[in-house]
């Protein structure tokens, strides 16, 4: 598979990025923010696993990674450090979609390539040195909505478990989901906040089911394992549930699908970091890539689950099963990733 298929533009209008080719190997930095959850850890591991593949490693002189925590100003400062330290490209998983205009300007002056992924930036239009790698969040929300529409027996009452308030990803997925639901105005939608966290989600859903009664379908942006447990513990009829890519969630679906717990699992893949690195190298080599790269959403459902391929009975529940992008030649096995020891 060639890069072309991997780097699909978000839309025909979203423009492309190309910089004068540089000679490799390259010095690439990653200014990560928060690190205190399983997804971030696996994301870092995927990056390192990918970077250590011979073909890739040959292109990289230095891969410097820092995690600065949740503070916006610290992440900006980190980027400035990397810019002035003369790195060729900087990857970021942004603490805020809007906070980086000034530093983007400085990066542009210095001719440094910025590749943002996962929590991406709001474009102002001026950035010619910015490549963004992500899954289309709106599309993901819509995809889930559509799947629910197809799989719900009845369509009276749906429970939507949202993410972290005030966060742009939450906003996008919510919008997408509502677009899908708008198809059928009769549906009553109950919203609760789950913070993408199993504990919070489980509690909120359990309470909502107890108070607002049974539902015909559930969409949860994250913390899917907890949400599913809430449904299982509620003694309410099992209904279709659309959730994230956690291994534990998929295990539960597989175990209970026969009892009606149909499940769709499409997640933000931790391997986005690998795609971002791939894109960075491509641009530095002089290739032209879309400014807004949309990698395919790695979705699977109760029909397509396959042990060892897209879910892993013997791996941790917190492992994110959507860990590879075949069409991007990113096929690290689960063990490549979890095997990445801390050294």
């Amino acid at each position, binding site marked *: 598979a060639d890069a072309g298929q991997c780097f699909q533009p978000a839309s025909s209008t979203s423009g492309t990025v190309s910089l004068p080719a540089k000679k490799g190997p390259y010095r690439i930095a990653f200014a990560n923010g928060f690190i205190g959850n399983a997804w971030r850890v696996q994301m870092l591991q995927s990056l390192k696993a990918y970077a250590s593949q011979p073909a890739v490693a040959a292109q990289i002189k230095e891969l410097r990674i*820092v995690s600065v925590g949740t503070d*916006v*100003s610290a992440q*900006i400062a980190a980027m400035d450090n990397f810019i002035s*330290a003369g790195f060729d490209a900087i990857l970021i998983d942004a603490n*805020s979609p*809007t906070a980086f205009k*000034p530093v983007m300007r400085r990066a542009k002056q210095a001719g440094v390539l910025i590749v943002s992924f996962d929590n991406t930036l709001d474009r102002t239009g001026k950035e010619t040195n910015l490549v963004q790698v992500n899954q289309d969040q709106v599309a993901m929300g819509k995809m889930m909505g559509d799947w629910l529409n197809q799989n719900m027996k009845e369509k009276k009452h749906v429970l939507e478990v949202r993410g972290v*308030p005030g966060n*742009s990803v939450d906003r996008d997925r919510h919008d997408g989901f509502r677009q899908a639901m708008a198809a059928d105005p009769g549906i009553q939608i109950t919203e609760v906040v789950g913070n993408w966290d199993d504990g919070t989600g489980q509690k909120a859903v359990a309470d909502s089911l107890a108070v607002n009664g049974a539902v015909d379908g559930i969409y949860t942006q994250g913390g899917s394992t907890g949400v599913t447990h809430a449904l299982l513990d509620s003694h309410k009829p099992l209904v279709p549930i659309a959730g994230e890519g956690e291994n534990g969630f998929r295990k539960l679906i597989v175990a209970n699908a026969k009892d009606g717990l149909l499940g769709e699992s499409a997640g933000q893949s931790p391997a986005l970091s690998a795609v971002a690195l791939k894109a960075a190298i491509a641009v530095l080599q002089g290739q032209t890539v879309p400014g807004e790269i949309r990698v395919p959403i790695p979705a699977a459902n109760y029909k397509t689950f396959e042990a060892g391929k897209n879910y892993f009975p013997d791996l941790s529940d917190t492992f994110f099963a959507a860990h590879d992008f075949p069409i991007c030649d990113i096929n690290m096995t689960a063990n490549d990733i979890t095997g990445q020891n801390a050294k």
Partner: protein
Amino acid sequence: MFGLYLALQPHGIHTDVLITASNKGVLLALVAAAQTLPVLTGGIDLSVGAIVVLSNCVASVLVSGSGLQIGFGVLAVLGSGLVAGLFNALAVVVGRLQPIIATLATSTMFYGVSLLVRPNPGGNVDDDFASAMTGAVFGVPVSMLVLATVLVLLWMPFRRSLTGRGVYAVGSAEASAYMSGVKVVRSKLAAYVGSGLLASLAGLLLTLIAESAQASAIQAGDLTLNSIAAVVIGGTSLFGGVGGIVGSILGAFILRTIGDLLFVLSASPLWQPLFQGLILLVAVSFGALPMLRTRNRLETYR
């Protein structure tokens, strides 16, 4: 430590590094300064972070347009901090609530208000104003100048004023202060209101650094905790009566430098949080050394 960090810079001291380092350093320094005032009275303000975020959100709405509008915007931002601080002050002085728990409650409310002001991240802030305030003049970062101004024009006079000394008096022994006719109420009010004001100044700076705002509870929490750490590293006693803002500012820069050391000592990403935690733990434990030296065990007990 800061020096060490700059010295270790692979490419020498680059103005951008200096500017951004000082920007984020000053940000925390202002929050730490805000935290110092209540701590000096023997209290604490767990809502400083929330006030920073609140004023950040307010600023992202108001600091734009004509020069005049920007001016009013800035005033409004500082005003928001002032009001928040006043709210805390009344809770503590009139409501007689324990500061730690009262500000815990108010911080939730302040965060709620921030969400009202800015449900989604974003905001349009005047570019020129922002770059001016976060840039440098004659190689000196503007943020540093702002900090210096706060020190010289606000803190130093305050410390020498009757109310300022009242703050220390109340922190040292409130009942005695009251018995000696110290203006207990006035001093406490001043401490918490001043805290809110400085926090909003930090919020303004954050807005100018990011040219936008996000109502983030996590960031609010982190800022609060870091401010307390900075205050302690800066040598201010959490029991009140001893210390000052100058120390807290140093503490803030030390704390930031701990984070920056990661750039120069390139630690493996999975080890970084551990290293930072350990260094923080050691840093805060340093304040304890004098305690270990006292030969009269009684003095080590409250």
